[in-house]
């Protein structure tokens, strides 16, 4: 008789991707661990409903899926949010707004890409005005694949993100700070004239805090 242990096949692969191995775990002090633990218990979500995947985010807050039991709750504005969920394909027009919202969020901040469209363009892979890899424009911490992913999958993505936060280490916003020139060059290539004004991001060059 065949018994399924913890995971099998591609599921193991996914689990390995989501949680880095012990060797990678960053050593931190007790206080850092405590703060990280509280941080992962309380994620305010800015749901950016760009594509069809947005329809799967609404049920998260309902009684059936009840994301609040993980401490996940909607935030009204980017200023108060910790997690930006990009739900599906990004047109060039919305990319600009997403970048602006992302830069308004206070650190530490995380991004979840929902659906195949954020990974490789999905079924819009040859569209003339859709961004194919969102990761080239803003750093994405967790992908939830599928077209479209069920709310359960999204919850699993959140739980994986919580594990990441608990383990500490570098997250997407560190990458964005360190490679700001690369991200900005990519954004400029995609947006051209429509690039957000420089004052929205130049403080990244000024050594961090405005």
């Amino acid at each position, binding site marked *: 008789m065949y018994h399924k242990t913890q995971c099998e096949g591609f599921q193991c692969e996914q689990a390995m991707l989501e949680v880095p191995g012990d060797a990678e775990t960053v050593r931190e002090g007790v206080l850092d661990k405590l703060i990280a633990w509280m941080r992962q218990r309380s994620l305010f979500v800015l749901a950016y409903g760009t594509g069809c995947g947005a329809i799967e985010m609404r049920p998260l807050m309902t009684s059936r899926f009840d994301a609040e039991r993980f401490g996940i709750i909607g935030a*009204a504005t980017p200023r108060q949010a910790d997690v930006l969920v990009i739900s599906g394909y990004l047109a060039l027009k919305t990319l600009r707004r997403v970048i602006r919202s992302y830069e308004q969020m206070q650190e530490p901040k995380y991004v979840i890409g929902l659906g195949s469209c954020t990974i490789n363009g999905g079924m819009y892979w040859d569209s003339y005005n859709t961004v194919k890899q969102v990761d080239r424009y803003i750093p994405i911490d967790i992908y939830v694949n599928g077209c479209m992913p069920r709310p359960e999958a999204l919850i699993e993505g959140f739980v994986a993100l919580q594990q990441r936060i608990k383990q500490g280490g570098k997250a997407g916003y560190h990458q964005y700070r360190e490679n700001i020139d690369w991200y900005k060059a990519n954004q400029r290539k995609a947006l051209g004239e429509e690039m957000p004004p420089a004052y929205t991001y130049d403080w990244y060059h000024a050594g961090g805090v405005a």
Partner: protein
Amino acid sequence: MMHAVVDSLAMIGVSYVMGFLFYGFYRQLNARIQRRWGPSIWQNFFDNMKFFFKSETLSHGPMFFFGPMIIMAGAFTTVLFVPFLKDSTWLQGFSQYGNLILIIYLLVVGPLGNALAVGSSGNPFGVMGVTRGLTRLMGLEVPFFLGLALVMLQHETSSVHAIMAAQDGLANWGIVTNPVAFVVILLPFIAAQNASPFDVVGAPVEVYAGPRVEFGGRLLGVLMTQNMMMSIAKLVLVVDLFLGGASNVLVLIAKAFSLFLLTTAISMVFPRLKTEQAVDFFWKVPLGIGVLAVILTVWLPSWSA
């Protein structure tokens, strides 16, 4: 001196812990009513701590920073001027130097600081929230103060200590001897706690987070803290005035919690009113009862005498 410092810190600590536990309970009860599990009872503590350890990268000038500080200072002083226990040297703060009239003044510091900070941020959604808040304040202040005036008239003193001392035994509790004043205060009290049906200021889903729209990171953490402490200060004040105060911390928590349950039950059943409906309601029902009660307590005895 040492005693005063330790006592003040203890009061602030007690009000903070009670604050997040009460609100955690509120969220869990709300979830159970909607047939879901809901967050843990510590959730508000986690949220608050998370905000304290976030970065704060935006600035709208000095007033944007000082506004929350003014509100926070207002919350601290309010907590320190409300006696938490009676017949005890502990958890008194500076209440022997203050009275009910001072507390009435301190209650207005919060909205004032809010208006200053939000005004300097220039965010239209924030200004909209402040406008809604001040409109509601117009409605709730008058009946609230009328109710407090009724209590002061009944006991012929403005000292919270004296009012507490007068209520020895269940039969002398303010809620028994002066139920009309309790009713007059109860509804504005729910509004002052920012609970439904009068939660027109924050108004989740309806307006963008109300006055707090521009705050994120640490300043939002400060605002959350003061909100929780202020709620407890108001709860304890009503316990002092109507439920005979408390002689130890356990009794205090039990009484404050039962009052909290009462207001929670009301706010869970009734959905939010519109701003003008709320003001309308306050000017009609609690104020009407209040005016009647004033006539009954002030003029009727003098006529019959």
